[in-house]
C-alpha cells in the first residue's frame, strides 16, 4: 500500500461496495450525530457566553484540562512499557494479564471508583500506610488524576500494543544484530515506529480522562477548583440550570473535537 491510495482519492480503485451497506452505515452515523444536533438546538445562545465563562465553569474547565493532561502523561509513562511487555514478550499467564489490564475498559467507572476507594482510601488496603507517610489522597486533585488514569490507561495500552504487533519486529532484530543495546533499540527503533499508535492511544486516553465521571465522583468527591471536573459540573448544573448544563456540554464536545482534529492533522503531517 502506498500513501497515495487514500480513501476518497481519485487513484483509489473502486471496490464495488454493496449498496445496502450504506443504509445501516448512514443510520449509525445519524444515531451518533443526531443527539449532538439536538443538544445544539437547545442552547440559549444569548446567554451562552455568560454561562460558559462563569467562575464555576472556568474552574471546572481548567481543572479538567489540567487533570486530563496529567493523567495522559501518567498513561504514557506506565502504558508504553505495559504495551511493549505485552506485545514483545511471552510469559505464562500473559493472556490473563492482558485481560486484567483491559478490565477498566468494560468495568462501569463507578465500580472503578469503589475499587480505588478500597485501595487508596483512608480505610483502604494501602490507605493506612499512606497516612503514616503523610499522603492524603482522598478529596484531592491527586485522586481525580488517579481515577482518570485508572479508566484511561487501557485505551493507550490497547492502541499501542496493536500498533507494535502490526509493525512487526524486523527492524528491531536488524538493529540488535548490528550491536545496538536493548535500550537503544527501544528508544531509537521501537518507539519511533510505534509513534502513530502511541499518538492515537494518547488522544483516546486524554478524551476518556476528559469525560471521566463515575470513578471521580465515587473516589475523589466534588469541590469547585479541587475535584469538580467539567463532567461533574455539568451533572450538578443540571439540577438547577439545565441551560448551563447544555452549554457546558457543548464546551466539552468542542474541546474533544479540537484535540482529535489537531492530532489527526499533525499525524498526517508526519
Amino acid at each position: 500500500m502506498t500513501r497515495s491510495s487514500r480513501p476518497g482519492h481519485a487513484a483509489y480503485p473502486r471496490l464495488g461496495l454493496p449498496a445496502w451497506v450504506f443504509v445501516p452505515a448512514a443510520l449509525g452515523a445519524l444515531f451518533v450525530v443526531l443527539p449532538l444536533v439536538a443538544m445544539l438546538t437547545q442552547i440559549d445562545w444569548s446567554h451562552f457566553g455568560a454561562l460558559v465563562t462563569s467562575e464555576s465553569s472556568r474552574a471546572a474547565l481548567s481543572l479538567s484540562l489540567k487533570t486530563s493532561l496529567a493523567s495522559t502523561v501518567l498513561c504514557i509513562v506506565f502504558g508504553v512499557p505495559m504495551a511493549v511487555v505485552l506485545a514483545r514478550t511471552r510469559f505464562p499467564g500473559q493472556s490473563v494479564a492482558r485481560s486484567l489490564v483491559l478490565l477498566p475498559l468494560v468495568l462501569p467507572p463507578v465500580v472503578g471508583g469503589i475499587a480505588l476507594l478500597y485501595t487508596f482510601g483512608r480505610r483502604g488496603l494501602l490507605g493506612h500506610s499512606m497516612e503514616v507517610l503523610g499522603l492524603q489522597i482522598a478529596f484531592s486533585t491527586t485522586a481525580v488524576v488517579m481515577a482518570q488514569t485508572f479508566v484511561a490507561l487501557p485505551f493507550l495500552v490497547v492502541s499501542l500494543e496493536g500498533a507494535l504487533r502490526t509493525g512487526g519486529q524486523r527492524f528491531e532484530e536488524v538493529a540488535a544484530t548490528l550491536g545496538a543495546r536493548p535500550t537503544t533499540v527501544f528508544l531509537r527503533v521501537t518507539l519511533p515506529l510505534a509513534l502513530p499508535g502511541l499518538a492515537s492511544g494518547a488522544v483516546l486516553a486524554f478524551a476518556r480522562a476528559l469525560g471521566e465521571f463515575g470513578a471521580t465522583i465515587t473516589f475523589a468527591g466534588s469541590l469547585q477548583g479541587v475535584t469538580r471536573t467539567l463532567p461533574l459540573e455539568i451533572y450538578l448544573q443540571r439540577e438547577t440550570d439545565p441551560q448551563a448544563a447544555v452549554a457546558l456540554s457543548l464546551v466539552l464536545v468542542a474541546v474533544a473535537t479540537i484535540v482529535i482534529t489537531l492530532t489527526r492533522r499533525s499525524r498526517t503531517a508526519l
Partner: protein
Amino acid sequence: MRYAARVLAAAAAPVLALTLAGCGSGDESPRGGDSSPTNSSSSDGGELEGDLTVFAAASLKKTFTQIGTQFEKDHPGVQLSYNFAGSSDLVAQIQQGAPADVFASADEKNMTKATDDSLTASDPVKFASNTLEIAVPPGNPAKIASLQDLAKPGVKLVVCAPEVPCGSATTKVESAAGLDLKPVSEEQNVTDVLGKVIAGEADAGLVYVTDVKGAGDKVEGIEFPQASAAVNVYPIATLKDSRNQAAANAFVEAVTSAAGQRVLADAGFGKP
C-alpha cells in the same frame, strides 16, 4: 498493511472519543415503566385494576415500596411500578412526557415546577417532612458532638452541593448557627454523602434523619438543635396525563392514610 491499521485507528479515534466523552456522565436514571395503552381504570367506584407508575424521590424508596406492597394486597388488580430518583430528575422526566401516574417530591420547589407546568391533576398534598442530622462513621473517630464541631480544623466534612435540596438545607442550618463550614466535598446527593461517611473517607456528613436510620449500624447519627431551621416538606400529587386516575388517587390516599403515615414515621420521617 500497517498503514491500513493506522487509517482504521485514526478513523475510529474521533468517533470513539466523542462517544466516550459523552458517556462520562451517562448515569441517567431509568425512565419509568411503560404504562401500556390497554390500561383500564374503573372510575365508577368498582374494583381498581391496571398498571400504576409511581415517580418518587429516592429517599422514599423503602417506605413507598412497603406502602405499595400493602396497596397491591388491598387492590390485587393493580400492578405497581416505581421510578425512584432525585426529585429534579423526576420532574424533568415528567416534563418530557414520561408515563407516570403519581409524583412524590422531596421538596416543594420541584413539585412547584410540576404544578406551574399544569402537569398535576390534583392539588399536591403534604405527607411527610425530613430534617438534617450529622452522620459519622461508627465509633465517631473525629469526636463530633455538635454542629459547631464540624467547623473545627482538620475535620473532613462532606455535605450536599447548595444546588440540590439537601445542600440548600445545609446552607440554611449553617447560617442559622452562624457557622462557616469548610467541607472537603460538596456531593450531588445524600447517597454520595452517606457513602463517603460509611467508607470512613469523611469524618462527618450532613444527611437526612431518615438516611441515618436507613443506614442501620453503618453510621451513627448526631442530632443538633439548628436542624429545625431547615425542614423539608414532601408533597405528593396525581398527574394529569395519568391513564389510571382512580388507582392514582387511591395510592395517594394510601400514603396519607394512618397506616401509610405509620410506615413513614417508623422510617424517621416527621409530620408534614
